[in-house]
């Protein structure tokens, strides 16, 4: 695998191969020596144009567990804030000998631009670009679902027939997009639930069902309910009247939590707005996978870096 830019078009077998290696990486996380020598001598650069503590440290932990050298490059307070463009930044990183660049950017498509540009030879991992995609989040979500459902028998399996309901701010959510593509590739049935103002205008080509009624969606007893963060920072205009109204209509509150089957898992990509899209009781319940998702994130990112940086170079 040369780059990981999107989950749209990621073949099923390749996705399962990533999840399977992640199973073994998870076992490494439980050992006393949580380190493998696999990527010794490789340099991974975390290039973050947008704030993200958890994704960055997750990638950093993953690279370090594989013995790669990690350089963190935050755009704030760097040459970028002095006006350097993406091309010059990329060429600088190439000159430093980057083998892989993990990119988080506010502009949709920035990682693809880097991968296609020829400015830099490194493998590119999209760590979230604008409202486009966040492929490693979707992979870790799929991994978390598969593990909760199948436990130690997860290897080689897909998510055939699993029903996943994604709730909230779909239009601004790269997590939702990456999950829609990946989960449906793996055989899951995805339903989107959101206020009409927070759904993309054109959903043709999306392999999903759409509902505007969260209570109805919960009554269907989905295997997974995934609550998205309300992204205040991406909302220039008012998409709903106020926070209380949103929480009442679209939040996973205690009452809806009780209506949910005990076997359903509750997911959230974090960071959570407790009391807004998810209640504290829902977030902390045994059905919640929030901390599993964080833990699995490191394993899945180790697997992604391994797939990018091992193997005969296909250039």
């Amino acid at each position, binding site marked *: 695998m040369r780059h990981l830019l999107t989950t749209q078009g990621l073949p099923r077998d390749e996705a399962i191969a990533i999840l399977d*290696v992640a199973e073994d990486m998870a076992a490494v996380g439980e*050992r006393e020596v949580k380190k493998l020598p*696999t990527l010794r001598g490789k340099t991974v650069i975390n290039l973050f144009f947008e704030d993200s503590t958890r994704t960055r440290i997750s990638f950093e932990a993953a690279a370090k567990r594989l013995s790669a050298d990690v350089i963190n490059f935050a755009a704030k307070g760097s040459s970028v804030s002095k006006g350097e463009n993406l091309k010059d930044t990329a060429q600088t990183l190439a000159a430093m000998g980057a083998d892989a660049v993990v990119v988080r950017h506010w502009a949709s498509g920035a990682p693809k631009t880097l991968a296609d540009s020829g400015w830099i030879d490194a493998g590119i991992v999209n760590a979230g670009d604008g409202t486009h995609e966040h492929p490693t989040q979707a992979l870790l979500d799929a991994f978390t679902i598969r593990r909760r459902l199948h436990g130690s028998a997860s290897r080689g399996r897909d998510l055939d027939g699993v029903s996943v309901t994604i709730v909230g701010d779909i239009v601004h959510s790269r997590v939702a997009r990456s999950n829609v593509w990946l989960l449906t590739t793996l055989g899951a049935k995805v339903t989107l639930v959101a206020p009409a103002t927070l759904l993309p205008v054109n959903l043709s080509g999306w392999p999903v069902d759409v509902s505007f009624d969260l209570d109805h969606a919960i009554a269907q007893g989905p295997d997974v309910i995934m609550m998205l963060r309300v992204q205040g920072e991406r909302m220039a205009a008012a998409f709903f009247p106020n926070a209380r109204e949103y929480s009442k209509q679209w939040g996973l509150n205690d009452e809806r939590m009780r209506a949910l089957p005990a076997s359903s898992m509750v997911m959230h990509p974090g960071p959570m707005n407790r009391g807004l899209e998810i209640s504290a009781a829902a977030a902390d319940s045994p059905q919640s996978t929030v901390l599993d998702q964080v833990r699995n994130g490191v394993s899945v990112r180790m697997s992604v870096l391994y797939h990018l940086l*091992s*193997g*005969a170079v296909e250039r």
Partner: protein
Amino acid sequence: MSVRTVLQHADITRALTRISHEILESNRGSDDLVILGIPTRGVTLANRISAIIESVDSAVIPAGALDVTMYRDDLAQNPTRPTRPTDIPHGGIDGKTVVLVDDVLYSGRTIRAALDALGDLGRPRAVRLAVLVDRGHREFPIRADFVGKNLPSSMEERINVRLEEIDGVDEVTIG
């Protein structure tokens, strides 16, 4: 080049039975033994050896799996390899005599990787190596302690180990 069978089911069983006795003899019994197979077929062989030792010594010998993929030195030369589970039996390997089991010993690079992998999992008292077939052409100063069959081969030849649990038949072919 024609393919010929060098070991059949009975030969493989005899070789593994002899190896099991040799392991018991050199270890002076079955105390503190751990048998670790290297995936894929080494794991099957490790389980068989553990079962044979159990039947002759009536002691339960822990058997497990040691995946060495992430420790290989040829990851950059080949397509990305899938990993396999590592399964260390309860009780770990600290202070134990670990017998590594693989199907074919060739360059010795897999065993070099296995020794590194073991070092990250604990500190065995001793590490031994058992292989079904030793085909020569070593590239490292590594030798097997227990060998099913020495099979001098040219580097162009392919040695194929098939085991009933995985391949439906027990045989070793060369060709």
